[in-house]
């Protein structure tokens, strides 16, 4: 038997298969810290110095700034995405593009959110840029600002069909080149597939 702290030994006395529930429900454990009832997290407007600098520089180009789970999100006009990204890299020192992705909201007028997650080594800080884009509306590519965007934008195009204007070689990356449809769109059913492609290339009737 390992020299364990008393509380742990107590817990191991309960049946080992499902200790989680009894341990949480056991009354003589007042020390359980997560019991503190906090208000559920929700997005709140953000107005710090960074946002003020953004607004002073780009005015209407900055649509909204929010703080969600302590993370800063700045919604920007899609047609100014490249200038704002360049400013983020050069002036605000967000030198790394961590991720670029999209979210589909089909009921909205402009259905896509294009998301850029930036990181600044100097400030040890993350920033999320968000731009709304319509279905056939191209979004400026940020490849020239962060070369990391190359494959990420290709994936975004592959999965959502968002066209990045100025991308050096925009083509599918994960799906086969001839595939029809963009799988991560909400109206692309999870069981859907490009049946013609499957028949032609795999020699089977269905991949399901």
């Amino acid at each position, binding site marked *: 038997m390992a020299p364990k702290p008393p*509380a742990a030994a107590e817990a191991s006395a309960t049946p080992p298969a499902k200790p989680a529930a009894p341990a*949480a429900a056991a009354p003589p454990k007042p020390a359980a810290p*997560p019991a503190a009832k906090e208000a559920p997290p929700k997005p709140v407007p953000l107005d710090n110095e960074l946002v003020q600098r953004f607004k002073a520089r780009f005015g209407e180009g900055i649509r909204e700034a929010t703080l969600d789970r302590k993370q800063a*999100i700045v919604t920007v006009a899609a047609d100014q995405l490249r200038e704002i990204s360049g400013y983020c890299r050069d002036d605000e020192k967000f030198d790394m593009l*961590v*991720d670029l992705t999209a*979210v589909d909201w089909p009921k909205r007028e402009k259905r896509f959110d294009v*998301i850029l997650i930036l990181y600044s080594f100097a400030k040890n800080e993350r920033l999320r840029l968000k731009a709304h884009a319509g279905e056939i509306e191209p979004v400026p590519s940020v490849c020239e600002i962060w*070369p990391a965007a190359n494959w990420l934008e290709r994936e975004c195009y592959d999965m959502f069909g968002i066209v990045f204007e100025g991308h050096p070689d925009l083509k599918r990356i994960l799906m086969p080149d001839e595939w029809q449809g963009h799988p991560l769109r909400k109206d692309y059913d999870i069981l859907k597939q490009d049946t013609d492609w499957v028949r032609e290339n795999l020699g089977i009737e269905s991949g399901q």
Partner: protein
Amino acid sequence: MSDSRNPGTSNVSTTVLGADEIILNMGPQHPSTHGVLRVKLKLDGERVVDSECIIGYLHRGVEKIAEHRSYQQFAPYVDRMDYVAAVSNGLGYCEAVEKLLGTEAPPRARVVRTILTELQRIASHLLWLGTHALDIGALTPVFYCFREREEILKIFEKYCGARLTTHAFRIGGLQYETYDGLEQDVKRFCDDFATKIDEYETLLTENRIWVGRTKGVGILTAADAIALGVTGPVLRASGVKWDLRKAMPYAAYDQYEFDIPTRETGDTYDRYVVRMEEMRQSRRICLQAIENIPSGPIMARIGKVLKPPPGEVYHSIEAPKGELGYYIVSDGTTQPYRVRVRPPSFVNLQAFDKMARGALVADVVAIIGTIDIVLGEVDR
């Protein structure tokens, strides 16, 4: 310069070939591509002048599946991305959902998570070392590495019953209490492992063939690495002292002392040295953590049905291969509206073209090995 700013843009098949140039196709069935990676190389004699990675052979649509599962149901799927470091994947996902819920795992769970994740880092690096050395022609290290990796997998098996796709953690904490003797097992492993790393080093570090095949091969400068979004040991070998465990601590990392190894040149040899040192540091963290595992509950009170309030969160951890991030959007229902995985292998692989240009064909094998990719994670 414009070339270096836009790597990976080449389209090898459609470019016009010079008089002495040929196109060589490597993969997808090639033993040294560690899975189904296909690389098209444009060669001038033995030199690579251009390259293009073709990926997607293992695409399973993990992000689409996530939108059709509850938060808990999706947790086992993340193990199948980087399947040689499943524990790290699970940690990232569970912590991201916890953040989305606005809760946190209890201290005991966080420390146990840290121990298992660091063991996983050692296991992942051991697999990398063995196969990388094998690719370059050293047969012995792979047997040594698998011997020690086995000990780690045994600890996982004793803890949760699985060795590879462990599903070791749950959203909110842990499902299983630690077994009696976990501390002793980890301690025994760590005590033995110190001499084992030295043993690997006697085989490779000053080995003339190893040095000849890795020094100056696949150089990546710090500026290029940052521009390309490269993270993890590859970034640190280029001289950037950055590790998420220090920069934005998660789990219980803020309680332990450890160093971030870095090197300057950013070649294949440097990445080897950095990963070797990282294993020593992981061992240090494990030894500190088992000294004092706090008592108390292992599961936060989160309820059986998870309905995170609407909103979004990005959370990332330092996985063995680099920054592993989860971007999750909730619409207030039991299923995530969108789960985006930021895979380190995918982003790091983008630097391949930069590293391979000007190298010899034989070096390509070393460069693929040194990036340490897992195709399950690249393709998801």
